[in-house]
């Protein structure tokens, strides 16, 4: 039952972690990693989001059904983005529109 009460110290550590990660992601943006920049930014953002969901939103102590609901949402978001890439990734970069070329 999500009536779990987390200690204040946990909230503060999570808060500090999120702030540090914000700094890290901004710092990482100044390092030229080429294609990896986007990946690093998304991994950090994903990790921050997991922290918020897990601890601030008590999903860690919630019922299996709540965890399943969160997973379903992310799964269908992955379907949306993934199958978009099937089309936009495989299309040879569409010819530059005539008036732009």
């Amino acid at each position, binding site marked *: *039952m*999500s*009536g779990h*009460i*987390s200690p*204040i110290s946990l*909230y*503060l550590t*999570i*808060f500090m972690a*999120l*702030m540090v990660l*914000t*700094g890290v*992601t*901004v*710092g990482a*943006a*100044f*390092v*030229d990693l080429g294609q990896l*920049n986007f990946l690093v*930014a*998304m991994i*950090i*953002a994903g990790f*921050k*989001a997991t922290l*918020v*969901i897990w*601890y*601030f*939103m*008590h999903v860690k102590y*919630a*019922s299996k*059904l*709540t965890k399943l*609901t*969160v997973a*379903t*949402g*992310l799964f*269908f*978001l992955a379907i*949306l*983005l993934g199958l*978009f*890439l099937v089309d*936009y*990734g495989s299309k040879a*970069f*569409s010819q530059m529109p005539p008036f*732009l070329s």
Partner: protein
Amino acid sequence: MSNVVAHADDHGHAHAAHHPALQHHFDTMAQQKEAAVVGMWVFLLTEILFFGGLFAAYMVYRIWYFDAFAEASRSLSLFWGGLNTAVLIGSSLTMAMAVRCAQTNKRSATVNWLILTMILGTVFLGVKVIEYADKFEHHHVPGYNYQWAAAHPSTSLGAGEAAGAEHAAPSTALGAGEPHRELSLNADQLQLTTQIYFSLYFTMTGLHAIHMIIGIGIMLVITWMAYKGRFDEQYYTPVEMTGLYWHFVDIVWIFLFPLLYLVERHV
């Protein structure tokens, strides 16, 4: 509130006095609470996919016109973006504290934390107003005599009294003038394709801001209810639901910040 109801329920044994907030079609408070949490998460599911559509459009155009996204992203002020992220994470903390105080039946603490969360939310919206004003001033709003200057130096909008020395990145006043590397799009192509970036920027941040305003509105009601003492350790669901919603809005910004502000900051 409705009077305390005690009645023998169908299994024949007298039932403890129902909590006044227990609705007739639920058997126990636990079942009602669990239904509310799952219901809220199903609603957040729809929000995930609601913003997901925008992220899909962002992903497509970032693949097609990366240079336009890079140049346009540079024109955003990293200082204000970083500050806003810190403000919103702070408001997530204060919201979590508010929920915790509601759980432990500390009425005045709950009210104070909720007020602090609303203040931080308003600060966030204020910073957005500043950023939008800057965009209007530089004619970066598509459909409103949009002018894309060649390589727009990202001004840091002056020192600006940073509320609290959070360790946002140093305000970046990058080299003005010529672009940082050879671009695949020439000037008039940039004039067109950066409009797509800014269309997405305004739609995403505008939608996020609307969700913030709704969140603050709900929080006003919840603060008033908390002030009236409607919550205790058995029934604090509205506070927790507002908390879930607020944390979700924070998560959306956690993704929006790197996607919009940090497309390509290295030189």
